[in-house]
């Protein structure tokens, strides 16, 4: 790590000179394996799930193949932690360090990030411990099945949504609320607690032990779902600011490196910068445009106030769509459209629901859960519907319906 201290100090100074600010950053030199591990789990020490195992496998294969990897990893915590691959060359790690300063500045200053849970690293570890305890108590299979089901509905979180009525339409919040209502009733009956006491109540071991045995399942579900939702919200913020965050980090990386690299090195790097995955290049292009059109102060303002949707909506132009070669592809017609509005709408829709179909909970009576897909013109893959409904039933109970593809799943019994 010693060899990097000088360049770290220099890059940090350059970043601050430009008006960036951040919490202390700890860089850690590590191997591809740990990088693949943290990148696939999202947070180190998070509970172990097979889903991360698949991502980990892919990443380790990819990391092993690539001599050169700039997969950068920064945790949104205070202080921030960032990882450098020790098999990278010095220059490659310098790239990563410069990029990291973009991210940590974003974590500290972006409006949406300020609401994020900087303690998630520790909370995730606590969650993992609780989950292990539940596994010991209720059996690993039972807990894993519930986790599968909950992770399935967890894509419906929206950490930016503050309106309770809107949140209520999203499946995971709806379920959490209903679970909690039922549990509250049981707690009231069993322990005679007041509403105020209930609001303060933490789901600790001794509370649970005072509940009648048949409430155990409800406690398990409520508690697991709450933890899954909290973690999902942490990742949701990352997703909803993916373009702006990566674009900003790449922009900062370029700004800082230009200062310290030779012309020749800079030329190589700038080719490499335009060769990155889409969120990086889209965001990077947008920031460069803002700098050129409106100056550096405006750049700082945008990184502070915007999220992906607003950035795309406010900055993307016809010309950039062409240059980035972004288009809406219609597989039926095999046609491409570079129309600015279409591309923008599609990008925004994708950010709103993270590329997932827009499903809402319909108001209904207590026993039944009715879901509706809200873009009637878009067909859902019918093969997945049954599996999805099975997962939701595992949480809710047998009475679950989904309106999609112009019909009701499952078909209601003929009257």
């Amino acid at each position: 790590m010693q060899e990097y201290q000088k360049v770290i100090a220099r890059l940090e100074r350059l970043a601050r000179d430009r008006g960036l600010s951040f919490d202390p950053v700890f860089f850690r030199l590590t191997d591809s394996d740990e990088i693949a591990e943290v990148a696939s789990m999202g947070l180190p020490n998070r509970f172990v799930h097979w889903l991360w195992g698949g991502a980990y496998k892919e990443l380790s294969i990819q990391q092993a193949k690539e001599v050169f990897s700039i997969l950068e990893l920064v945790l949104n915590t205070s202080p921030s932690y960032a990882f450098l691959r020790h098999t990278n060359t010095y220059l490659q790690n310098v790239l990563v360090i410069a990029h990291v300063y973009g991210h940590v500045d974003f974590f500290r200053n972006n409006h949406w990030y300020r609401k994020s849970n900087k303690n998630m690293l520790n909370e995730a570890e606590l969650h993992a411990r609780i989950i292990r305890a539940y596994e010991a108590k209720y059996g690993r299979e039972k807990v894993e099945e519930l986790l599968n089901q909950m992770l399935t509905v967890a894509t419906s979180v929206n950490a930016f949504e503050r309106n309770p009525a809107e949140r209520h339409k999203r499946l995971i919040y709806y379920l959490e609320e209903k679970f909690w209502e039922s549990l509250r009733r049981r707690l009231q009956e069993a322990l005679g607690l007041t509403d105020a006491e209930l609001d303060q109540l933490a789901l600790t071991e001794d509370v649970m032990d005072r509940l009648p045995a048949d409430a155990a399942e409800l406690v398990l579900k409520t508690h697991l779902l709450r933890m899954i939702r909290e973690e999902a919200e942490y990742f949701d913020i990352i997703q909803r600011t993916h373009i702006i965050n990566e674009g900003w980090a790449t922009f900062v990386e370029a700004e800082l490196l230009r200062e310290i690299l030779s012309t020749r090195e800079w030329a190589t790097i700038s080719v490499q910068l335009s060769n990155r995955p889409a969120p990086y290049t889209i965001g990077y292009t947008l920031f460069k445009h803002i700098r050129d059109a409106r100056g550096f102060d405006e750049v700082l303002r945008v990184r502070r106030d915007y999220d992906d949707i607003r950035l795309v909506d406010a900055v993307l132009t016809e010309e950039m769509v062409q240059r980035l070669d972004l288009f809406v592809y219609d597989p039926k017609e095999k046609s491409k459209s570079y129309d600015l509005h279409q591309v923008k709408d599609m990008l925004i829709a994708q950010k709103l629901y993270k590329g997932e179909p827009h499903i809402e909970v319909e108001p209904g009576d207590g026993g039944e859960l009715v879901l509706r897909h809200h873009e009637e013109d878009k067909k859902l893959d019918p093969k997945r519907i049954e599996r999805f409904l099975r997962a939701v039933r595992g949480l809710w109970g047998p009475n679950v319906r989904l309106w999609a593809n112009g019909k009701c799943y499952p078909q209601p019994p003929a009257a």
Partner: protein
Amino acid sequence: MAAARRAYDGMRIRRGRIAQSKHDHLLREYIKNNLNDLIQQKELIVDGRVKTQIATLDLPTLKYGEEVPVLAQGQGGQGGGKGAGKGGQDAGGEMQMLGGILGGDHHGRELRVELDFDEFVRLAQEVLIGQMELPAFHEPVGQGEVESEDIAELDDLDRIGLRADLNLEETMLHSLRRNARERGVLDFDVDIQQDAWYFVEDPSSFENHRSVEIYVLDISGSMRGEYLSLVRKTIFVLWYYLEQRYPTNLRKYVVFQDVAEEKSRDEFFSVESSGGTHISAGFEKAMELLEGVTEYDKFLFLFTDGETSSSDFDLAKRRYEEALERFDLVCYGHVNPGGRSVGGFSEHVQEAARRHPSATFANLTDLESVKGAMAEFLNFFKERAGRRPCRSIRR
């Protein structure tokens, strides 16, 4: 620094690996449950990997159907950053679907099941060996209690019953005979206590054993799913036994219709059917590939529906006879998923193989028949073992 690193690594809980083993456990279950569908894919290997159409090792989140318009980026926009291709299926042309990528996290991402071909083969073998109730090899030597200084004592080895020294052919045949005798069924229900035979010879006599295996596939007929499935299953099970026997397996692949062509492994497992049938061409190419091969045991495995064109019949017969001379063993698989009676050129081979010690014929109709074919194949080793100075001792 290095020492500190090691100490840290030693303590680290490898959560990634634990998660992966959970994932792989589910993956095995999935492969096992879907082996038939997977093995029948026309393009079994793409870029050295087996891809699956059925997405299942993901969470059952809802997804759009295939016909819904998507946001995409052409290659002019960027170089398609590494690991970015997860967004969706190939839409033809140089473009990349951006759906999953813009999400940025693994939640809800399409995790298509995809694995190394070698890994797939290993899993398939495990399933097939199980389904056919063939004896499986366990961990190779060097595991557990048999690893001791006394290993030179061959009698001890014999007594311990080291699995790697199991004379599989002899054991299987013995089991077959015993089951026929005792239960009236032709079954490899190996009872190790009763049936096991072991090699007790000096293992160094094996060390120069290498095999050249030439796989010849008739692609003229309709390459229906079952056809491919039978061929591939047979090959995978063959590999299982051949790899145990030979430290080196030199494999060559040929496909033929009117003409024959050598193919790479990946091409061999991703073929389209076409053309008429000249079985003679398949034999010719196989023999051509033997040029310069000397110190190997030479195997030819040919898979066909036997319907060679009538003009080719006599030539094919001659080439077959020649191949029998050139190869140590010529295994002819009549691929017959419909289970019809054997006709055409296959009928000829079926007759000829009975008379010839280095020929086997298998009517591949179902998994059960693959099992029969394996018995015949393994019988070759048994007979040859008889011709060689290696001693098999009945326990």
